[in-house]
């Protein structure tokens, strides 16, 4: 194994640690919101510092590899994709933190009726699973797993799309709980962003493995094989 290969393996391992941490943050945020658990929310905010530190560390390591080893071809694509995946993961962690902040400042648990009509917990579950599954796609270098994410993002989009009407209806029926309804609406929009970040990450996995740019092209995203180098 060359020195560069071992550096890249280390970089991948660190990205996966970051990924696991971000996934766990999102899972904790989901639990904390479901159970109005302020202790869990505080734990998320504490761990956010670790996410930020890991993000910076990965950025620096990518910069070092680019400067010291001038990687090319698949190695270059790996470093470039890790830079972007890292950035997307940090943003997902930010969303987990904002949910934690919401739990902390909420005076009462979310109205179960509001939870039911908005399906926010189902949406949360899907976003959390997507974050984990796209990680599996990267870890196993499987672009088919990455491509499934594009389809699943559409589900999050649909939750988000219908949320405005659902929340408006809820507010009409529950005028005393407007503030909480609006907070839930904002959270739904943020969870929709988690789907977008997972989509961005899936695009990076396809770029890394298949050397294909699938951004801004629905057809390209859904087409293609699982291994690009041998085609």
């Amino acid at each position, binding site marked *: 194994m*060359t020195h560069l*290969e071992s550096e890249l393996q280390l970089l991948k391992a660190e990205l996966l640690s970051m990924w696991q941490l971000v996934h766990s943050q999102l899972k904790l945020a989901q639990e904390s919101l479901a159970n109005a658990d302020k202790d869990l929310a505080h734990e998320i905010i504490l761990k956010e510092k670790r996410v930020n530190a890991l993000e910076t560390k990965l950025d620096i390591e990518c910069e070092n590899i680019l400067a010291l080893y*001038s990687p*090319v*071809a698949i*190695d*270059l694509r790996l470093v470039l994709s890790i830079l972007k995946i890292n950035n997307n993961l940090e943003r997902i962690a930010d969303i987990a933190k904002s949910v934690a902040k919401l739990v902390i400042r909420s005076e009462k648990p979310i109205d179960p009726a509001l939870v039911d009509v908005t399906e926010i917990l189902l949406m949360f579950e899907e976003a959390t699973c997507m974050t984990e599954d796209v990680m599996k796609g990267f870890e196993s270098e499987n672009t088919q797993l990455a491509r499934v994410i594009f389809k699943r993002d559409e589900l999050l989009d649909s939750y988000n799309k219908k949320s405005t009407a659902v929340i408006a209806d809820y507010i009409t029926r529950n005028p005393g709980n407007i503030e909480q309804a609006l907070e839930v609406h904002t959270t739904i929009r943020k969870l929709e962003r988690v789907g977008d970040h997972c989509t961005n990450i899936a695009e990076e996995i396809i770029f890394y493995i298949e*050397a294909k740019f699938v951004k801004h092209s629905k057809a390209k995203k859904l087409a293609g094989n699982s291994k*690009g*180098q041998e085609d």
Partner: protein
Amino acid sequence: MNRIYTEDVSVFYGDNQVLKNVSVSMENNTVTAFIGPSGCGKSTFLRLFNRMNDFIGSFHKTGLVSIDNTDIYKKDINVEDLRKKVGMVFQKPNPFPKTIYENVIYGLRLQNISDKKILDEAVETSLKRAAIWDEVKDKLTKSALELSGGQQQRLCIARTLAVKPTVILMDEPASALDPISTSKIEELIFELKKQYTIAIVTHNMQQAARVSDRTIFFYMGDMVEEGDTKMIFTNPKKELTQQYITGRFG
């Protein structure tokens, strides 16, 4: 327009085949880099174009090597004329132990050109094109051996340019130079391609990526892959090419 064209070229040193059925074309005003591990045949391929391999007794080739639509191995070819047309720059700077001026006009003297005006003009033009004029214009009568390695290499390029070639072959032209001189040579290659067709052998992957338009990867006498340099260094089609350029070889 294709300046250089080869079709099914195989090269042998005695019974040993060092190039196998190589077919490529190189267009005018482009830089083509030949890369590959030692012994892959890339320098042999380069030296086909000025018939330098002819000096090796056991050399023989099959297939077509053509420059400007002329088979350069056909019987009536004047090899000296061919070498005027196809200049070469070597790995180590090799100025003659003469003045800077005499080095540049060496090829012209061999052609019995003695008109001072023509010679002066050739010196100035060639040194300017080789991006060394400003550094040596006040010491043309000094020995070329007083120059630094990088300056000597650019002087050798000027000497090559003085005989007005159309093709320049470079065999690892910067491998013996420091990074600043290397950068000057690379900038020079970039400028020269506006007027010449350049083929360069290099072991430096980054150099191949920086200076060339096309890259050809050789391995054990085979041309494994040939293509746009950007494509070769970002998404090579062959696994072997990827292994070589990423350093995972053997």
